[in-house]
């Protein structure tokens, strides 16, 4: 699914400039803990989150996230928008909650790109 199509599915609004809306989204991941995202997300996923600080964009950049969706109509602060514009990552806000967003995107055919974190090195368990 392209980012532009995803925006339609979730009644979303694009917040920043400079991102490639033709970029292919291969699946989704929803989380508010950035360490969880870094541990579990696979490349080219859309990240659904309620967290709005610039670390969301940094996390997305490190983990090769295709687009970021802020849930429950949240709007990120200026620093977050500026960083996303600079790094060319699409920021989208949607009026729906996390639960409904996951449902809508899953129904539209997006698989989960969230991996279980319990398969890490066994000596750390």
């Amino acid at each position, binding site marked *: 699914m392209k980012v532009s199509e995803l925006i339609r599915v979730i009644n979303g609004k694009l917040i920043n*400039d*400079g991102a490639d809306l033709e970029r292919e989204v291969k699946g989704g991941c929803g989380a*508010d*803990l*950035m*360490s*969880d995202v*870094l*541990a579990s997300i*696979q*490349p080219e996923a859309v990240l659904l*989150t309620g*967290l709005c*600080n*610039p*670390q*969301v964009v*940094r*996390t997305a*950049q*490190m*983990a*090769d996230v295709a687009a970021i969706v802020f849930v429950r109509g949240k709007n990120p602060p200026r*620093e977050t928008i*500026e960083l996303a*514009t*600079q*790094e060319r990552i699409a920021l989208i806000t949607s009026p729906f909650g996390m639960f409904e967003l996951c449902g809508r995107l899953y129904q539209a055919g997006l698989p989960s790109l969230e*991996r279980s*974190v319990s398969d*890490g*090195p066994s000596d*750390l*368990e």
Partner: protein
Amino acid sequence: MTPTPPSKNVLINDQVAENITRTEELAYELRVNEVMTSSPKILSPEMIMRDVVEMFRKARISGAPVVQDENLVGIISMEDLIHCLCQSDLDAQASKYMTRNVLTVKGTDPVVEALKIFVSSKVGRLPVIDDQGRLIGILTKGDITRGLLKALQRDIQVEEIRKYRASHLFEDIESDRTSLILRYNIKPRDFTHGGAASSNIKRALLRLGASPQIARRCGIAVYEAEMNLIIHTLRGGVIRVEIEPNRISIEAYDDGPGIPDVELAMKPGYSTASEEIRELGFGAGMGLANIARCVDNMVIESVVDKGTRLKMRINLDKEESVGEGYSSRLDGGIS
């Protein structure tokens, strides 16, 4: 596509400048003569309108400048042609129906000047003239779009060249062991810039020819280490990345407060972070476990009140990348 040129009395500060897109910049950088169509189809004032129609049809154009003795004297557009057809006057000369007061643009003008005219006048094409007023080309909105797209493409190529140069950095240097060392100073509690070092490191690795998988693993590991320095240290710390053709060695070190029980700190879910840190999405006790997952080798040395040194290594000659669940491209390693 239409740029928003600054009004004359407003100074552009950094804040405004950050919001200018590359396309807008290009509209100021590119000159009209770089994007125009050179040697366009031209008409003479004596040309019969029937022949004008035929020429438009054959050349698949919807307008052309009228030139006499190298000087631009008018232009015929669709509107003029329709006017002529309504009068059933196809045997008339072009001079009878052409628009005489033609808006023009100079070849040396920046593209943004032409855009301004297109926006304010609704004309479809602009004859392009040189300093002596001679016609040198014609410019449509389509020419501008194509020109901007080509220029953006060139931007991408510049990055490619940069990448190519960097990826061959080690080739011509002879030594027993060559490496590139990057150092970043990390300030404590600087959440606004948190991740900037990791971002630069990831970009550097990609330019050096590392595969996206290697760059991603390295980026995630360094990012967690960087956030740890920001969250936990008293006076910040240093990230040092040593890049060699066959491995990347990363160290994150600080001078306090130190970790009392390293084994406990490594346990997923264990955290000493404050509620404030957790609200930022960090301090879930996953950081060190995440790092262990991304690197091939990891060592923590810590002494309370002295400091902590976290050493990480990623080998570039391995077929399988550890912990990421997919294999890295062999040919993608730094060459």
